C-alpha cells in the first residue's frame, strides 16, 4: 500500500534555532531548506530494523531485590500514523535519565548519582496494535550546562522508525503538571499550544498490577497516511 507524506504545519514542529539553546545557532542550516518531490526513495524505508539491531528488554527499573531508586512507573505507548492506524512491528528506541536525573553515558559525568540497578535504555518492537509497555522509574530533572540556570523537566527520549524514510521520528515525552515544563526551552520551542500539549503523557488510574506503579499513557503520531484511491 502506497503511503503519502505531506508537509507538516510549521507551528506544530519546533523552531530550529531556539533562544537560550546555545548550540542551535551553529548547527542549523542558514540556507533555506529545499522542498523536493517525494519519490520512491523517500517513500520507502527500512522495515525490519530488528534484523540489524539488538532489541533490549522493556523492564529497566531493576529486578528482585535490586530495584532502581525512584517512583516506579509503567508507560503504555501507542504509535499510530496520521490515519490513526497502529504502526505495528516498528523499532522504538527509548532512553532516559535515572530517578536522580543522571544518564548512563560518558557525556554525563557531572552532578547526580549513578544508580546501578537502573538500565536507562530499552529498544522494543510495537505489537500489531501499535502498543508497547515500559516498566521504569520516573526520570529526574537535570540542569543543562548553560550560564542561566536552565533545567530540563523530567522527560523520556524516543527514536522511532515507522513505515518509510520520511516517517522517521526523534521526539521527547513530558510529564503532566511539572513546574519545569513551562520554562523548558526544548518543549517550548514548539510554537503551537495544542502541539506542545500532545507531547505530555496522560496519568491514568493505576491498574493494580503492580499496585505501586504510576501508570502513564502516551500516543505518538508518525508522519504518513495511506493514499486515497483517486475519485472519478
Amino acid at each position, binding site marked *: 500500500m502506497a503511503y503519502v507524506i505531506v508537509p507538516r504545519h510549521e507551528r506544530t514542529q519546533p523552531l530550529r534555532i531556539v533562544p537560550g539553546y546555545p548550540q542551535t545557532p551553529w548547527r542549523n542550516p542558514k540556507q533555506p531548506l529545499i522542498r523536493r518531490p517525494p519519490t520512491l526513495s523517500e517513500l520507502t*524505508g527500512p522495515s525490519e530494523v530488528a534484523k540489524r539491531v539488538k532489541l533490549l528488554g522493556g523492564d529497566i527499573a531493576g529486578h528482585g531485590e535490586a530495584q532502581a531508586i525512584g517512583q516506579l512507573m509503567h508507560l503504555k505507548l501507542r504509535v499510530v500514523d496520521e490515519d490513526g492506524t497502529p504502526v505495528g512491528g516498528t523499532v522504538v528506541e527509548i532512553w532516559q535519565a535515572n530517578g536522580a536525573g543522571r544518564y548512563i553515558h560518558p557525556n554525563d559525568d557531572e552532578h547526580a548519582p549513578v544508580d546501578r540497578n537502573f538500565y536507562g535504555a530499552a529498544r522494543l518492537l510495537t505489537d500489531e496494535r501499535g502498543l508497547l509497555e515500559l516498566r521504569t522509574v520516573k526520570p529526574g530533572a537535570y540542569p543543562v550546562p548553560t550560564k542561566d540556570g536552565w533545567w530540563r523537566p523530567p522527560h523520556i527520549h524516543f527514536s522511532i522508525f515507522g513505515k518509510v524514510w520520511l516517517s522517521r521520528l526523534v521526539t521527547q515525552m513530558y510529564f503532566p503538571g511539572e513546574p519545569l515544563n513551562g520554562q523548558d526551552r526544548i518543549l517550548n520551542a514548539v510554537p503551537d499550544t495544542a502541539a506542545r500539549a500532545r507531547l505530555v503523557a496522560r496519568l491514568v488510574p493505576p491498574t493494580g498490577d503492580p499496585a505501586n506503579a504510576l501508570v502513564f499513557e502516551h500516543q505518538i503520531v508518525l508522519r504518513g497516511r495511506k493514499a486515497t484511491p483517486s475519485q472519478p
Partner: protein
Amino acid sequence: MKKRKAVRRRLIPSGEATIGPFFPPRYVDAGANDLSQLEDRKADGEVIEIAGTVRQEDGTPLDNLVVEIWQADANGIYRHVADPRHREADTKFFGWGRAATDKEGRYAFRTIRPGAPEGRARHVNVMLMFSGLMRILKTTMFFPGEQANEADPVYRAVPKARRKLLVAREEALGRYRFDLKLRGAHETPFFDD
C-alpha cells in the same frame, strides 16, 4: 443530491525534538555501518566505502553525531513493499545503516554501489541527528560522473550553484568522500519534506 465524502480523521504528527547529548552509545550497534552483508551473506554488487566529516558553522568537527543512510540494492530496488519490484530485491542487502562520528567528526559506511531506482540517478539518502538539531536533517548523496544526475528530480530541486555539494568525491576506486557542513560556507543542501 449532495455527494457524501467519507470523512477521514487526520491526526497531526508529533513534534520532533533533539536527540540530545545522551543517545546511548550501544544504539550504534557494532556492524550497523556495514551494509555489504546481511546475516553473514554478501550482498550483490560492488562494495564501496562512503566516509566524511561533519562540521558546524565555525568548522568544529562534531563528535557523537548519528548518521543514518537508506539506499536501493545493486539493481536499484528498495527492500520495502512500496517498491513495485520489491519481490526481486536482493535478500542479502538490508539497505539501512547507522554510524556515529568520532572526535574528528568522521563517519564511515561500507556498502554496495546502489543501482539507479526508477526515474532517479543512483544515490544514498542520508539523515543526521544530533544535540542542538531540533529536527532531523535530511540530505541525499549523489555519485560523481553520472549523467543521470542532471535529470534526477531531487538533484534538480536544488539551486544550480549548490548541486555540486551533494556529489561525493571519489578519492580512490570505490572510496567516496561526502563531507557535511551543517551551516555556513559550503553548507550542505538539506531538504524539508
